[in-house]
C-alpha cells in the first residue's frame, strides 16, 4: 500500500516528505519503546509511535523504517521535523489511537513484524 493511501485512510496530516508518499509499505512496527522498534524492524516498515522526540526519528533512521506515523495527534516540534527532512523520512500525524491504526492497516493487508 502506498504511503499516500495510508495518509487518506488514517486522515493524516503530512509534516515532512510530502513529495515522497509513493513509497510502498507492506509492514508496520508499532511501539513507544525505541528498543522494541530496533529489535523488530527489519527495514522499510511504517513506524507507528506516540513518542515525538528526536530519538523517534533517529530510531527510524537507524532501523531503516520508510516513514514515521505519530498517533493520538501527537506532534513533534519543528526541530524534529527538520531532522526528519534531513534524513528524507516522511512524517505523518493522525488523531487516531495506536490500536485503531494497527487494526485498520491490518484489515487492509499490512503485516506486523516479529
Amino acid at each position, binding site marked *: 500500500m502506498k504511503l499516500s493511501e495510508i495518509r487518506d485512510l488514517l486522515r493524516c496530516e503530512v509534516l515532512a516528505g510530502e513529495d515522497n508518499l509513493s513509497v510502498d509499505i507492506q509492514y508496520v512496527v508499532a511501539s513507544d519503546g525505541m*528498543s522494541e522498534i*530496533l529489535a523488530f524492524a527489519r*527495514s522499510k516498515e511504517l513506524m507507528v*509511535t506516540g513518542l515525538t522526540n*528526536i*530519538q523517534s526519528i*533517529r*530510531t527510524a*533512521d*537507524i532501523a531503516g523504517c520508510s516513514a514515521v506515523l505519530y498517533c493520538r495527534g501527537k506532534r513533534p516540534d519543528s526541530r524534529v521535523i527538520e531532522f526528519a527532512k534531513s534524513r528524507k523520512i516522511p512524517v505523518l500525524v493522525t488523531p487516531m489511537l495506536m490500536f485503531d491504526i494497527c487494526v485498520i492497516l491490518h484489515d487492509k493487508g499490512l503485516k506486523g513484524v516479529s
Partner: protein
Amino acid sequence: MASELMRECYEIQGGNFDRAGEISSEIKAILRDLAVNPVTIRRAVIVAFEAEMNVVMYARKGKLTFVLTDEEVELVVEDEGPGIPDLELAFQEGYTTATDEMRELGFGFGMGLPNMKKNSDELKIDTEVGKGTTVHAKIRLDAHA
C-alpha cells in the same frame, strides 16, 4: 590477522538526550560511504545506538571507539557510570532499572542489552559497580541477513 582500516574516537556526554544517537548516525554515514553491506551497517549501528543511549541514560560520561578492519566493525564503549550489579539479569529481555523519565524518552524497556547481543557476533561486557562499564562488540562485515 585483520588489518585496521579506520579508527575514530567519540566522547559521549551523560544526560544529554538531545544529542544522544549522533555518534551512531555518524558511524552509519561513514559505513554507508564505504559501501559496507547494509545488514552489517544496520547491526553495527543498532549496537552503537543502544550503547550510546545507555551511557547517556546512566553515566556521567563515556567514550565510543569505532574501529573498522577488513573483517569486522569493532565498537568499544567505556563509561564512568554506576556499573551493572547483575549482568545475567541485565541481559534478560524486559528487565530494566530505568526511571520513568528514561521511559518517557522511549528507552529503558529492558531491550538494550538483548538488542546489542542479537546484533553482535561477539559481545563482551566488563563492569564494576561504582566504577563503570565497558562494552566490546564485534560485527562481521560478511554479516548474514
